[in-house]
């Protein structure tokens, strides 16, 4: 028995899990409908795929949500996991699921997949025969991913960096790398049985003033860590940033560099997709405005040329959206994609050049780290602040980089901290902003820049 398999056996023999039958799961994946594989849809699509978010505590609620989504002409179904399960606190998840069922009141902010188990969940997923994407935010997602694939979920979102720095305060980063290495290998292995399992990185990070160079670097690194382990279908992603131009430039640079670095490590055969998230930051409480914001995001995603868009709802500022609100966004987004024609191709060469230089400089610093493996290099660079994510709650994050919006609402770096932004680029970024202001007004500007869409 391989070491990996030994580890897998240990992982699934958790007190909250019913007996796990690996042989049966492998057979299920081998014979699973192509429709369940998003990688298959990416290959054959002629339009941007639309995927909402959504997870409810009970099976019945989740099933009803999917029915709504299908009626709204969804392309990809989501399975969003509750925050207790995300932090491997299955006991609380179980308790809250019971309370939710008993009191007919939601006590969980997502679907507790481990508690429901793969046998039950697979019924639902094969019933709808649509690709499902697992959205969680879990640093240690080993059991979750085993359960997900066994359920028929063939797209796994996340990664050691993107699901840790925005989602955790204390979870050890080195452990996260190892746990995700496990996930990558499990995905790579299952990918040999049928269409590839798609892995997707979570580009939005904290959704709060993250500059594009940091987003792209982290996307590229998670992509490389995944391809290294044999994954053949990977999606890089980012969220609407607040400036149409900056989004278009970010899209162009990320596409170009993903190809470049994948080829560098000899993985040019992998398929790389681009995913765009509708605005992930603080939403307006006015629901009519939220609709406008969502529609604008769809337009920008089209200008960016994304392969998939992940939607929000008009209730984002309020709380977990109802299934009706969620389905509405899907239908609306599909409509907008249908009527949005004659898209121009937009290029800003100067901005692209600056952003490319920034990303390549940070990537080089990572590669130059003396550690022996890529994940250790990345680990060191996060620890030393070569990679620094604004508004990360995690203790390992440096929090020394300061960003602000310029007049066009582009996110600009005004303090680079330890991030090796080349001097020329750094001067360019700062030159776009008014830095003569005193600290108090800069702090006020930052508060304002966070609430830019409200």
């Amino acid at each position, binding site marked *: 028995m391989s070491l990996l398999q030994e580890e897998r056996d240990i992982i699934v023999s958790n007190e909250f899990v019913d007996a796990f039958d690996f042989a049966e799961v492998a057979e299920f994946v081998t014979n699973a409908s192509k429709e369940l594989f998003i990688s298959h849809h990416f290959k054959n699509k002629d339009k941007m795929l639309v995927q909402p978010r959504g997870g409810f505590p009970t099976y019945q609620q989740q099933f009803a949500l999917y029915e709504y989504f299908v009626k709204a002409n969804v392309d990809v179904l989501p399975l969003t996991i509750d925050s*207790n399960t995300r932090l491997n606190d299955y006991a*609380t998840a179980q308790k809250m699921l019971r309370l939710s069922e008993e009191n007919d009141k*939601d006590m969980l902010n997502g679907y507790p997949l481990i508690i429901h188990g793969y046998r039950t969940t697979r019924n639902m997923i094969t019933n709808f025969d649509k690709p499902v994407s697992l959205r969680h935010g879990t640093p240690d997602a080993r059991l979750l991913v085993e359960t997900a694939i066994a359920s028929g979920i063939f797209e796994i979102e996340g990664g050691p960096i993107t699901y840790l720095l925005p989602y955790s*305060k204390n979870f050890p980063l080195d452990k996260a790398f190892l746990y995700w290495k496990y996930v990558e290998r499990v995905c790579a292995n299952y990918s040999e049985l049928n269409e590839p399992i798609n892995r997707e990185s979570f580009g939005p990070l904290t959704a709060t003033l993250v500059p594009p160079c940091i987003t792209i670097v982290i996307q590229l690194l998670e992509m490389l860590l995944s391809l290294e382990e044999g994954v053949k279908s990977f999606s890089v992603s980012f969220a609407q940033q607040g400036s149409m131009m900056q989004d278009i430039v970010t899209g162009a640079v990320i596409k170009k560099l993903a190809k470049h670095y994948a080829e560098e490590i000899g993985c040019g055969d992998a398929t790389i997709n681009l995913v765009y998230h509708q605005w992930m930051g603080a939403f307006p409480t006015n629901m009519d405005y939220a609709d406008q914001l969502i529609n604008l995001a769809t337009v920008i995603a089209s200008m960016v040329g994304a392969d998939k868009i992940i939607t929000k709802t008009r*209730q984002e500022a*309020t709380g977990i959206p*109802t299934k009706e609100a969620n389905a509405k966004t899907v239908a609306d987004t599909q409509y907008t994609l249908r009527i949005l024609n004659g898209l121009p191709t937009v290029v800003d060469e100067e901005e692209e050049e600056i952003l490319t230089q920034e990303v390549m400089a940070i990537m080089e610093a990572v590669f130059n780290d003396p550690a022996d493996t890529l994940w250790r290099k990345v680990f060191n660079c996060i620890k030393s602040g070569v990679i620094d994510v604004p508004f990360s*709650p995690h203790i390992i994050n440096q929090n020394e980089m300061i960003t602000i919006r310029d007049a066009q609402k582009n996110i600009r770096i005004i303090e680079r901290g330890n991030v090796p932004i080349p001097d020329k680029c750094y001067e360019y970024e700062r030159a776009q902003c008014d830095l003569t202001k005193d600290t108090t007004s800069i702090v006020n500007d930052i508060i304002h820049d*966070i609430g830019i869409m409200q």
Partner: protein
Amino acid sequence: MKVVTGVVGNDIHVVANRLIDLSLRARGYDVYNLGVNTHLQEFFDAVVETGAEVLMISSLNGEAEGWGREVRLLKSKYKSLDDVIMMIGGNLTVGSGNAEDIVARYKNYGFDIVCHQMDLNTGLDMLQDLLEARGLVSEEAIA
């Protein structure tokens, strides 16, 4: 005036927490910020340790509903906490709820000020009002 603040439970929404920290300081409070992902027990420990007069909890991801009911029990363990002003704010329920019901529920859990989906400054003004009403501060200054 000492305030212990932080985000309760498994919640990692940090943005409001950073702004609360800044705003409390700007208003002249002594701030002990425990950050995100802070469990109830840790909050109480910090109040005891610092002798804070105010405990200001944030919850954004909807899970406070789950923790709330344990507050009264925990608080009752410490005699000295009877006078501490207990405040909670953010997004206090999963999904959308009726603000009035929510406030009543949390008051019943033992909170003095409940700010469901309320602007931060309005909430801080409410705190100021309560402190004044209890004669703990004058109208002019906190610190």
